[in-house]
């Protein structure tokens, strides 16, 4: 009698030989919510903009509703930057960090689109810059627009880079048999200890070859040393270990490079964000003081 609890399994006929993606972490609802909010906000403002273009003789950033768009854009910039505060200082605020990141991403993209409408695409689609003075005119308005654009572009590019590099690391971690960087470093160290143990009491060529292969993994393919017969078995074992180590070192470097790219881009984005926020804040506050609060002193600078 031969029995089992389970029904027979169906054979998987069409097995794919690509890297398996077996499981998926559920996506956040915030992705859709913030996208929808951004689209609605942009659509609403776009309708008002279209209306203003059609009805006003000289629509521009100093007259409503385009002036109002500027105020909204500035508000959105501050709100978008709140992600950074949430991540660093106000962690008790409701929502997961990823929900805030999606707000940061979608509102950030929307902000530049609204800011473009605020400027009525001056220097972008019309009235192109003739010299560098356009960057300083009107309270550095064009500088603020450009810096906001650069900020958003670096953010979007960084996000795409994150996706790309994260997948690179994921592929490497699932195929190297060990895992991510921390695990790789430990395993490589273990293998090195293993090689050192094999080197103990061996001839100089044996040790030299192993140490050289540890320092320069490519030297593995070099000329093999002449060894005594009693050392041959250990040498084969050492070679296998070194080959395994070399493969792991390559994997480690790939992962480290990917992580470095992610971090470098993120750091660059943070510095760009700081600079851009200063320029945007300068322009926005100056315009607010000069043309919204109508303080004559500031109108000299605007």
């Amino acid at each position, binding site marked *: 009698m031969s029995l089992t609890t389970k029904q027979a399994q169906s054979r998987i006929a069409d*097995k794919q030989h690509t890297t398996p993606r077996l499981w998926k972490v559920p996506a956040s609802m915030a992705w859709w919510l913030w996208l929808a909010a951004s689209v609605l906000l942009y659509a609403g403002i776009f309708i008002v903009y279209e209306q203003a273009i059609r009805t006003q003789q000289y629509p521009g950033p100093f007259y409503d509703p385009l002036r109002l768009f500027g105020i909204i854009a500035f508000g959105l910039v501050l709100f978008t930057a709140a992600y950074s505060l949430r991540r660093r200082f106000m962690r*008790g605020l409701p929502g997961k960090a990823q929900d805030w990141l999606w707000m940061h991403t979608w509102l950030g993209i929307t902000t530049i689109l609204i800011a473009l409408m605020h400027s009525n695409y001056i220097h972008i689609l019309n009235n192109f810059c003739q010299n560098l003075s356009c960057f300083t005119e009107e309270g550095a308005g064009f500088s603020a627009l450009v810096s906001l654009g650069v900020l958003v572009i670096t953010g979007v590019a960084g996000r795409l880079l994150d996706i790309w590099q994260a997948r690179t690391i994921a592929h490497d971690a699932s195929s190297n048999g060990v895992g991510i960087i921390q695990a790789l470093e430990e395993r490589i160290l273990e293998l090195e200890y293993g090689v050192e143990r094999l080197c103990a009491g061996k001839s100089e060529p044996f040790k030299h070859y192993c140490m050289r292969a540890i320092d320069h993994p490519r030297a593995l393919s070099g000329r093999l040393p002449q060894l005594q017969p009693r050392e041959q078995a250990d040498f084969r074992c050492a070679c296998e270990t070194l080959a395994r180590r070399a493969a792991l070192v390559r994997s480690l470097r790939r992962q480290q490079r990917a992580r470095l790219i992610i971090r470098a881009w993120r750091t660059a984005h943070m510095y760009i964000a700081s600079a851009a926020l200063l320029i945007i804040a300068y322009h926005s506050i100056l315009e607010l003081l000069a043309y919204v609060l109508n303080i004559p002193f500031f109108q000299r600078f605007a």
Partner: protein
Amino acid sequence: MHMQTPVKSPLVVGIEHRPDVKPLSEEAIRFEIDMCIGCDRCMRACPVPLSASVTIADLNRATISDEIAPHVALFTEECVMCGSCVPVCPVDNHRDLLMLSLKQRLGISWNGQVDLSRVLNYLPPGWNVPLLLSRLREQPMFREPQLVPDNYLLHLVASSKLLTLVPGTTIMREGEFGRELYMLLEGRVELSSVGFDGRELPVAVLQRGEYMGEHGMLTGQPRHETARARTPAVVLEVPEQAMQRLLELVPALRTFFSILDDTRSIEAILKRMALFSGVADADIRAIAAGAQVRHYGRDERLFAEEGHGQPMRETLHILLEGFVKVARRTLAGTGRDRSDERIIAYRQHGDYFAGGLDMLGDRRAVTVTAITRVRVAEFPRQALVAFFARYPEVGQRFQERLREYHESARATGAPGQPTEDEAVALHALVGDGVVEGTEVLVIDLDKCIHCNECEEACARRHGHSRMNRKGMVVGNISIATACRQCQDPVCMLCSRAGIARMPGGEVYITESCIGCGICAERCPYDNISIVSLDDDTYQGNEQGQQGSLLARFRHFFSEGAGKERGRRVLPMAGHPQGDGPTIYDSTARSANVSRIVGPSPCGWPAPASPAAPGPLATQRVQRDALGEMRKKIAIKCDLCAGYSNQACVQACPMGAALRVQPIAFFGSTEEILRRRTT
């Protein structure tokens, strides 16, 4: 159920975690004491708080002389035999075995006097100690005084809580975790269970002399029933540690409970199996009682391929607990990890083998090996044949099942053989115990940007990160090194109740923990760490708060403000000396928390905080403050118990970190096998 004749109590208790320990001979003890250079390293390494008040000279003198000073005796009593003192000894002395010899000389504390002063205060009106004892003697396991002496019972009472309940009070809830045993001394208690329609259905009414909660105590599984007082009742709530101590002292009691648990487990499985439908309860009970239950450790074989035809293989095996792998011999070095066996299936709790033959239906033998702790019920062939003669329809169902399997096997070629990728994934998930967990922290590597926010958030909240992103990688998922809250946690064997489980299932470290490391050693997945509580080493994530101004600014800019606000409040596990009320009503259940502890205002364990006594420490002993200060503690993930969210999951900006129930997320082992790689 009758118990065996009285068994002589052991010389030492509390060393269940070291079953293979062998005491030193008199000569060896003298030799080791002579070897000792008095460097005191063992005492510095000792996690017992009282070790700060005992010198090595005191200890050596007590070990080889007849005089044992009171503070040494107390220290000996508190020694948990963790072995921390052994590796630090420069002359390779076995201080743990020297302590064992001292413990043997001191004898078992439960043989000594018992301090009942606290219990007397809480006795219901009109009750006294003889009445209490007589009520305890009504319990089936305590009926024979020569087996369980009065003194043991009094110690048991002193370590337990006496609850005086008003009608309607909930004693335990279905689905909640708990390891306390409840003995009904007065009144009646109703047991109920939620039916298929979601309504609570009464299951039984217990009366004086009966007990409940033994399933949770023995298996660590959630409660099966809800218990509510039907009339005014008096219940003795025995903490797991006190019961374990009694089971150590009276092995016949252990046999009593294991037989009870085995029979109930087998009955439950047989009743669930469609093959046994229509069989009378009495017959199910009879066949369950006839089964032989065996325990297998990790990597132990249930039966081997080459043992075909042996009696062991001619039985029906039902897995009561754990996971096994089914393998077949293959060409040398062509199996997984170049072994000479190929794993063809995994089986788990509730699965069964008949005839000991293969899973493919080709009547070839297989090797079945335990990959976790396994408990198996074995039914001899004769008993099964006799059962089939009584119930021919069951025999027919078995034959039908076999026929279906054969047909299925022919139709699909080689059924049940996973593809290589799936086999690796499956082995990792099952073999490395992921499916044993109830809450596993997974990281989707396709999303993770390796920013380490999860670890940093954990460190901010708890003072020390309780997780490590490094872990096993299966497909695109990394199983982070963080406690998985196992269904049956092997780490929970702490005589001080330093590790406990919330009703919701979160296993957490209590204020009784002294960092002896026994739980960490028992955890098969290295998910428990021991940290020193002195100021120099326990600084949490304050690295960035020192150093140059630039470094501090950079840390502030990149990491933000350090600590997290919010107070964590967790209950003490079964501590009998609390000041909480013992009279409960249904609305005051929360008062059951005998002492509320908050490690520190911001949730971090305060450096060198005093250790709370465990449930077995019933005698109030005057000691100096130094003798109460903890040196170390264990740290482990408790799913941020006491907080409204989990720091790691909350902080992940990519949503890559997630707590999942392994079966729901990865699928059952069969689903994983069927899953197509996409």
